[in-house]
C-alpha cells in the first residue's frame, strides 16, 4: 500500500489549536499545571502546544519540562545494545502539580508507563493527564488511555505512523506507511 497522509499541515494546526482550547477548558490559566514532553519526539508537540497556549493566554509563565524515559523502559537489555539517553530538563517541583504529559503517538502504552514511573521521581503530582497527537487505539498492551487526542487511527501492526515536524522535516504532516 502507498503511504498516505492522514494529517496535512492545515489540519495539523487546526488539531493543535483544538487541543490547546481543550486544555484551557480544563486547566484555566495553568497556574497549578505544567506541561511535560516525552523525549525525543513528544518534545516537538509539547513545545508547539506550550508556545500556542502562551500566545492564547497571553502569558509567559506556563511551566514546561522535558522528560527522558530511557532509563525507566521495560525493554532494556532486549535490544542488545544500550539505548542512548536524552536530556531531562524539569526545573520545578512536580509536587502537587497537575501535569499534562505529552507524546506524539500512543501505541502500546509502554512509553507512557515508563514516563509515569519517571515522573514520580520528581515528586508526587496531584494529577497526570495524557495528551497525544495520534492514538493507535487497537494496539495497546497496557491499560492506558489518553484524555486529549488529536486523531484516532485504526491501523494494523505492520503499518507505521510517522509524524513529521516543520522544525526537523520541513513540514507538519502525519503519514501512515506500511512495512512489507
Amino acid at each position, binding site marked *: 500500500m502507498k503511504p498516505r497522509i492522514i494529517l496535512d499541515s492545515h489540519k495539523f494546526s487546526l488539531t493543535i489549536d483544538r487541543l490547546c482550547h481543550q486544555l484551557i477548558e480544563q486547566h484555566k490559566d495553568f497556574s497549578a499545571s505544567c506541561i511535560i514532553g516525552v523525549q525525543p519526539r513528544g518534545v516537538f508537540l509539547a513545545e508547539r502546544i506550550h508556545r500556542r497556549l502562551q500566545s492564547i493566554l497571553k502569558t509567559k509563565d506556563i511551566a514546561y519540562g522535558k522528560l527522558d524515559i530511557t532509563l525507566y523502559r521495560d525493554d*532494556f537489555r532486549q535490544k542488545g*545494545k*544500550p539505548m542512548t*539517553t536524552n536530556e*531531562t530538563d524539569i526545573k520545578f*517541583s512536580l509536587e502537587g502539580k497537575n501535569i499534562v504529559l505529552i507524546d506524539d503517538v500512543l501505541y502500546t502504552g509502554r512509553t507512557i508507563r515508563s514516563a509515569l514511573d519517571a515522573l514520580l*521521581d*520528581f515528586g508526587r503530582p496531584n494529577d497526570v493527564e495524557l495528551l497525544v497527537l495520534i492514538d493507535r487505539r487497537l494496539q495497546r498492551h497496557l491499560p492506558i488511555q489518553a484524555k486529549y487526542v488529536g486523531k484516532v487511527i485504526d491501523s494494523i501492526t505492520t503499518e507505521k505512523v510517522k509524524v513529521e515536524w516543520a522544525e526537523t522535516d520541513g513540514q507538519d504532516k502525519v503519514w501512515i506507511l506500511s512495512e512489507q
Partner: protein
Amino acid sequence: MSALSQKHLIAIKDLQKSDIELIFQTADTFKEVLQRPIKKVPSLRDITIANLFFEDSTRTRISFELAEKRLSADTINFSASGSSVKKGETLLDTVNNILAMKVDMVVMRHSSSGAQSFLSRHIKANIINAGDGTHEHPTQGLLDGYSVREKFGDLKGLNYLIIGDIKHSRVAGSDIPLMHKMGAKVKVCGPPTLIPKHIEELGVTYEPNLKKALEWCDVANVLRIQLERMDIKFIPSLREYSLFYGVNKELLDSISRKIVIMHPGPINRGVELNSDVADSKQSIILQQVENGVAIRMAALYLLADRG
C-alpha cells in the same frame, strides 16, 4: 543508537574517541539524575555487581558503590583483608567462585598492573578496572576529562599539565591517553626520578621547572606523592619536594594566567598542594568527586548492555 566498542573498561588506551564521547554524553544524563529529589533510576535492577578491592580505597569504592545503587543494581563487596586470599587462593579462583553466584559485572582494583586484563581473558562478566598497580585507572581519567570539559566546554586544544609522581601514577596512565584522544596537549612536571624514561614516546613533553610549566597550562592536575609505592627513596625528603614541586597560592598568583587546579585525592595537604589552593575557587577537586559518580554510572550503564 550507539554502543561502546569494548566489552570491558580496562584501559583508556583501548577506547576510541567516540567511546569517550558517548560516556561523557551519558554522564550528562546521570548528572541530572543526581540533582533530582529521588536520585535513583531502575535501569540496572536486573544486574548484580561485585566490587573486588584487592587494594585499599575510599573514594573510588564509595563512588562505585553509590553509582551502582543509584542505578538500582545489587552489589556485593569484597576486600582482600579478612578474605580467603590470605589463605592462598589464586585470583582466578576467588573471582570464579564469586561469579558462580551469578554476578554480571566486576569492578576490580588490584595492586598488580594487568590483573584485570588477565582476568578478562578468563571470565565472561564485564570488568571495570578501578585501578591496577601503576598502569591505569580509567574511570579517574574519564572523570578528569569530564570535569575539564565541564569547565572549558571542550578538551580540544587545551594545555593539560600533570605534576608530581608520574612514574607510579595510574591516574597519569589514564589521563595522558584520554587527553590525547580528545585533542588536548599534555606536559608533565616533577623531579626527574619520578618521571618515567622515554615519556616523550607517549607524545608528552617534560618540564622540570614548576613555574614555567604552570605558565604553559590551562589546567594542572596535581598528583599525590605515593609513599606506599616507593620502596627506595626517589626524593630526598617531603620538605624538599614541597619546596620545589608543591603548589601554593603565592606561586599561582605569581604566574600571568588563571589556571584550574585538580587533584585525584587523597591530598597530602602541605606536601604537593597547599590548603590555600585546594580550598580556593581555582580548584575543582570536589567537582571531580561529584562527577566521578556520574561517570561511573555511565560506564556501568553502557557496559551492562554489552552482555
